[in-house]
């Protein structure tokens, strides 16, 4: 792990949603540091604010108040275009429902992420090794409907890391998988973290899944309820 300073630094993060006339305080002052190369599991009941925290970290939503730095870059008040750039270069997403484009093959699903990031040309040999590690190198020419849930999620992981993002955000990555595939996917994430030093944050309800992380952060009512390490 890198000890030169936190890759993610969050202080006093607040997020207020307005649903009609109702004000919803999703985050009520979150403080969190994540070191480069760390594998952090965030757990908490529904409505605790963990998805909102992910959306802000991933540049899908903007914070209402507080400071948030990723690799030294301040995310507060950045424009839509800058958040788009953040998603393109700094963050990779893995979703519970895989979210592969149904019309494209597994290979094209991975390549389109590269294309969006203006990185064209063949996959580099190092990444081919990652595909072998994920066990999908022989399934790349199939469309998502021909892949099992576990295979689809592994393709989604490959897509999330193809641009070498600083952070991999996984939102309930095993929520749609059976136990065997869940364990395989979690082991792969841990392997990616160990071998490549990939910083990973996952949201999960499953304590066994959370246990794959270096540490577990508990959230409740928009707060982090576990002390910082």
């Amino acid at each position: 792990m890198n000890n030169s300073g936190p890759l993610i630094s969050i202080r006093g993060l607040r997020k207020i949603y307005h649903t009609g006339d109702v004000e919803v305080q999703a985050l009520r002052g979150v403080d969190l540091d994540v070191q480069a190369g760390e594998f952090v599991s965030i757990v908490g009941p529904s409505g605790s604010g963990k998805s909102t925290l992910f959306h802000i970290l991933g540049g899908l939503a903007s914070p209402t108040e507080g400071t948030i730095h990723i690799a030294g870059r301040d995310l507060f008040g950045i424009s839509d275009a800058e958040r788009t750039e953040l998603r393109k270069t700094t963050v990779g997403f893995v979703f519970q429902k895989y979210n592969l484009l149904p019309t494209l093959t597994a290979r094209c699903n991975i390549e389109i992420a590269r294309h969006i990031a203006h990185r064209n040309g063949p996959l580099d040999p190092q990444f081919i090794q990652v595909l072998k590690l994920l066990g999908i190198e022989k399934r790349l020419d199939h469309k998502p409907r021909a892949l099992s849930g576990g295979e689809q999620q592994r393709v989604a992981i490959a897509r999330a890391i193809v641009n070498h993002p600083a952070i991999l955000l996984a939102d309930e990555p095993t929520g749609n998988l059976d136990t065997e595939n869940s364990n395989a996917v979690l082991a792969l994430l841990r392997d990616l973290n160990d071998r490549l030093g990939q910083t990973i944050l996952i949201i999960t309800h499953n304590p066994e899944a959370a246990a794959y992380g270096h540490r577990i952060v508990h959230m409740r009512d928009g707060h982090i309820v576990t002390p910082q390490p």
Partner: protein
Amino acid sequence: MTNQLVLENLKHRWVRTLLGVLIIGVQVMIVLALVGLSQGTLNEQVTRTRGVGADIVIRAPNSAVISMAGGMPAGVVAKVQQQPHVKDAAGVLQQPGSDIFNYITGLDLAQFDKLTGGFRFTSGGELQGPNDVMLDTFYAGQHQYHVGQTITLLNHAWRVSGLFEPGMLTRIVVPLATLQDLTANTGKVSMVYVKLDSPANTELAEKQLSAVLRGYRINSMEEFTSLYSVNNVPMLKEFTWVVIGLGSLVGFLAVFLSMYTAVLERTREIGILKALGASPGYVLNILLRETALLAIAGSILGILLSFVTRFVIHNVIPASLTQAIVPFWWPIAGAIALAGALLGALYPGLKAARHDPIEALAYE
């Protein structure tokens, strides 16, 4: 990669794609068929006029290109025949017939045959009596008339004396005197066709005739047939543009609806692209490329369909309409379809580009 995504999207939703292409294709076909009909029918008219073999055409003062009135006394014919270099002259009277595309022509057949060399009959023969009619094979075929049959035109019963090959002035020929009486044009003709001793004397003869027949419209055959243009047919140009406008509106609305539903259907996919870092411009680009492909495919289909309409028109109503294939209009019709389609895709495309990625990803 973008093109691959566009192609895969179109393949994946093939029914919507086919319908989009078909609607744009029909729009292009309507434009091409209409333009082709205007030009084809006029060209056919020119061919038949030239088929007379005359060198000069004389019309009454202030008459239109296709003159339907007995605007000048038949005595003009005799006067013309006396002029130098004039070999033969024949007066004709034209009256609206069974439909707007086929007028009835009254001829002094002996005079006309002398000028033209006569009609080429496929069955029957020339007019024998005052109530006889000759038809060209297109008109007879379209109406299933045959020699010996009695038909009604201008509320008058006529016996079909013969069927002749198309390409000679008109499709329906009756005796000049009978038509003059029936239409209160006794002693009058609409036009006079003049054959010269040599086509080289056309300019000279035109001048001489102009001096004798002051105020009359005297044109060489070349000049006269050049008057058969879209611009010289009242309201045809305006009608064409109205139909093109309506066709474009239909195409625009069809693409608008198609792309609007496509954007709704693909909300989640758009959310995925945005989560991967796709900019609004990237999303808009994909939808506009899809639309452009639909428009190009639709334009090609429309061009092919215009050949089908020509085939159908030629085989079902050959006497009424003639459709030409006008390649000059292919890029114009295609550009109109493309512009309408892109305009129709713009709002749905902008809506997609502005999707909130979180909401889009939550969309089921």
